[in-house]
């Protein structure tokens, strides 16, 4: 079965400093991995996706993530945090074993950005 573990429930950074949100995955085969962001009172939004192409994936708003099979990791990074990045971030794996490719979410990391 597929699963993801987000290693930090809360991360706090200062505006203009780098962001690192950590995610490890477990999968019996080559996974498809994603990062979603959830702002208060808004729907989940796809930040970026890895689907067995390039291991370094670039997403929206300057975020990127690197798929590392040897470490079973898919950490999310951004060089310089902005106040508008404050939100909850979910690492997600798709369940390709099912007929409908449901999404399996981690427990989330709440990112706070201090001025």
């Amino acid at each position, binding site marked *: 079965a597929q699963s993801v573990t987000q290693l930090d429930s809360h991360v706090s950074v200062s505006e203009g400093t780098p962001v690192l949100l950590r995610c490890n995955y477990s999968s019996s085969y080559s996974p498809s991995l994603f990062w979603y962001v959830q702002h208060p009172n*808004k729907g989940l939004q796809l930040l970026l996706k890895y689907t067995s192409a390039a291991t370094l994936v670039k997403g929206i708003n300057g975020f990127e993530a690197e798929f590392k099979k040897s470490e079973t990791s898919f950490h999310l990074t951004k060089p310089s945090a902005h106040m508008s990045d404050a939100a909850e971030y979910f690492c997600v794996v798709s369940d390709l074993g099912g007929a409908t490719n*449901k999404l399996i979410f981690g*427990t989330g990391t709440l990112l706070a950005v201090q001025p």
Partner: protein
Amino acid sequence: DAGVTQSPTHLIKTRGQQVTLRCSPKSGHDTVSWYQQALGQGPQFIFQYYEEEERQRGNFPDRFSGHQFPNYSSELNVNALLLGDSALYLCASSLFGGAVYEQYFGPGTRLTVT
């Protein structure tokens, strides 16, 4: 082009009652998935509907049921509400057979059971 819409935004119910949540998919989408997001947790898959049939179900009891209408909109019904059913219920729409990541989420319905 309207995205995924859900109603109501908030709902307060009493234990033992029944509730119906509604979802209208993004224009052009024919598949609706429902997720439950408890406080401090990630969303968990409840079930998915396509062609008015339940195609896959997560680990949720039969108290959770759904329906899809010919216009692709969907309802989530929960019977005999428990305090533990308090959560944000998210609807996601997609095109059947499309990429798994091409699911668009609505803002959710916040259900509080007292």
